[in-house]
C-alpha cells in the first residue's frame, strides 16, 4: 500500500440486489432477517443495518442494476483507484449524478472485477442522523462483509489487491481478503458463475446467532449452513437462504489481525476448514468444500 496515512478503501458499504419478487424479498429483509426498512423510491426498497442510510436494497431491475458498494477514503482516493484499475485493464467508468443519486453517494466509480461482478467504488456514502431501529430483535449491528463468487480468481485477486486488499488466509483457493484490522471483509469463492454468494451482517453476540437459528427453524426458513465457526477467522456464522438464492448471514466474533504481519495460511479444502464445529452445507457447492 503506497498511502502511509490512510487506506484506499474503507468498508463494504452496501449490497444492491435485483429481486424477482420485489415485495417478497422486502418482507424477507424486514420481517424475517430483521433489518430496518427505510425507503422506497426509484423502483428500489432500501434497508438499514447500522448508522448508514442503507446497506441493502432490492429492486425490480427495470431502473436499477445490482452491485456491491465499497467505500473509498475520499475523492482523491477515488482518482487513485481509477488510475490503478484502468492501468491494469479493468473496466471503470465515472458514475453520473443520476447513478450517484441511485446509490446515495456523492461520487462513484463503476467497475467490474475479473469475473464481471459490478463493484461500485464510492465516496461519501450517505449516513443517517437517526439511530438504527430494526423491525425485530435480531441483534444486527452492521453490514459486515460479502462473499463473492469468482470465475476468474487470479484476475479478481488482482482487482482487490489494486484496492489495497490483502489475503489473510486460503482454504483451497477460497481467499479471505482483509481491508481493515479484521481477518476479512471480502471472501472470494471459486465458482462456475459470478455473483454475490452471501451478504454477512454482524450481530451483537453468539446469543443472537443461536436465537436467529431457532427463529429460522420455527418458520421453516432454510438454513444453508450453521450455526458454525470458521477456523481461519474464528467467526461464528449462520448462513440463511434468502430471496433468489442469495445467502444472508449472521456473523459474530471475527478475529482481528493485530499489528504483526504474517503470511497467509493455507488450509485444505475440506469441510472442517470451513466449519470447526462440524456444520456442513449440502446444497451450495462454494460452501461444501468439494463434498457432494
Amino acid at each position, binding site marked *: 500500500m503506497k498511502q502511509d496515512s490512510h487506506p484506499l478503501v474503507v468498508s463494504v458499504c452496501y449490497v444492491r440486489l435485483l429481486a424477482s419478487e420485489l415485495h417478497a424479498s422486502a418482507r424477507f429483509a424486514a420481517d424475517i432477517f430483521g433489518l430496518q426498512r427505510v425507503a422506497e423510491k426509484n423502483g428500489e426498497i432500501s434497508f438499514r443495518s447500522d448508522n448508514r442510510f442503507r446497506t441493502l436494497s432490492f429492486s425490480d431491475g427495470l431502473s436499477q442494476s445490482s452491485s456491491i458498494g465499497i467505500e473509498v477514503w475520499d475523492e482523491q482516493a477515488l482518482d487513485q483507484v481509477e488510475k490503478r484499475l484502468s492501468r491494469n485493464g479493468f473496466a471503470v467508468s465515472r458514475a453520473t449524478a443520476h447513478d450517484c443519486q441511485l446509490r446515495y453517494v456523492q461520487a462513484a466509480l463503476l467497475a467490474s472485477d475479473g469475473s464481471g461482478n459490478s463493484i461500485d467504488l464510492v465516496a461519501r456514502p450517505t449516513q443517517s442522523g437517526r439511530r438504527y431501529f430494526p423491525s425485530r430483535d435480531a441483534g444486527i449491528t452492521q453490514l459486515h462483509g460479502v462473499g463473492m463468487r469468482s470465475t476468474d480468481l487470479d484476475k479478481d485477486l488482482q482487482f482487490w489487491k489494486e484496492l489495497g486488499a490483502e489475503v489473510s488466509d486460503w482454504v483451497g483457493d477460497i481467499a479471505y481478503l482483509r481491508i481493515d484490522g479484521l481477518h476479512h471483509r471480502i471472501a472470494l469463492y471459486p465458482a462456475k458463475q459470478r455473483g454475490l454468494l452471501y451478504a454477512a451482517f454482524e450481530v451483537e453476540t453468539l446469543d443472537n446467532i*443461536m*436465537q436467529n437459528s431457532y*427463529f429460522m427453524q420455527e418458520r421453516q426458513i432454510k438454513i444453508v449452513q450453521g*450455526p*458454525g465457526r470458521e477456523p481461519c477467522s474464528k467467526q461464528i456464522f449462520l448462513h440463511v437462504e434468502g430471496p433468489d438464492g442469495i445467502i444472508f448471514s449472521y456473523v459474530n466474533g471475527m478475529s482481528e489481525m493485530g499489528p504483526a504481519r504474517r503470511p497467509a495460511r493455507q488450509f485444505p479444502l475440506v469441510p472442517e476448514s470451513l466449519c*470447526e*464445529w*462440524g456444520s456442513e452445507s449440502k446444497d451450495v457447492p462454494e460452501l461444501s468444500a468439494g463434498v457432494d
Partner: protein
Amino acid sequence: MINLKDVSYVRLGSPDLESAETFATSCLGLQVAERGKKALYLRSDDRSHTLCYTEGDPKGQAVGFEVEDEDCLQQAAATLEHLGHRVQAGSTDDAARRKVRSFIGFDDPSGNHIELVVRPERSGRRYFASRDAGITGFSHIGLNSTDPARDERFWTQVCNARVSDRIGDIPLMRVNAIHHTIALVRAPHAGIQHVNHQVQTNDDVLRSFYFLSERRVPIVFGPGRHPTSGARFLYFKGPDGMVFEYSVGVDEIEDEATHRPRQFGFEPTSFCMWGSKPAGMALPSDQ
C-alpha cells in the same frame, strides 16, 4: 445443619455395562478409571471417579455429596435419624467401592438415594479424556421431586443448600459459589433427571451437538442457553434413558450475603433464551 461441600459422584445401575462404557467413552467422552466385574468407574476431572455404573437395575441410583469430616458425617446421621430418615452406615467394603473414607446412605423426602461421603479420593494423574469433548468436570445433577416445596425445605433447612433462582416453584440450589449443584424437577417418582458435565467453551457445546447428531445420539434439548445460570447447554440421552448435559459458563454467585433468588415464569423462555425446545425429554412440569 448438614454442610454439603460439593457433589462427588453419581452411581447408576445398568444391565449392560459394556454399552454403558461404549457410550461413556465414545460419546460422552469420559475416561475409564477402573473396570470391575460389576462396576465401571469413570473420571471427568481430578477426582478418582465421578460416575460409576454398577451392574443391575437402572432404578438403582445414588448421588454422593461430600461433607467436611467424620464428625460432620456422624452429626448428619444423627440429624437425619432424628427427622425420621432411615440412615445406613456404609461398610468398609462399600466405602472402598465408592473410593471414599466413609459414608452414610439415606433417602431424601422424594425417595432419591443420597450418600454423604468423607474424603473422596482424588487421582494423582490428570484427567485424560477418551474423546475431545472439552469436559472440565462433573458439576451438578437434576433431581426428581414429588413435591418441590417440601424438598426445597429439606435441602435448604436440613442441609445448607441455598436457592439461587426459581422457575415457577422449581428451585435451582447451590451448596457453594456455583449457581446450582442441585436442580429439582417435579416428577411423579424419584430419580436422577440429568447429570451435568461442564465443558471448556461454547465451541465444545456446538461441536458436540454436531458430533452427537452425526452418531444418532438423541439430542433432547439444545443447543441452548439457560437465562437463569447463563450457561450454554446441550442435553442428550445415554444408556437406560439417562439424560446427560454439557454446559459452559455457569454463573457464580458473587455475593453470598446479598444474593436474592430471582423468580422466572414457568415458560419455555425461562429454560432456554435462544428458543430451543425440549424433544424427548420431559421439561419439569409445574403441576
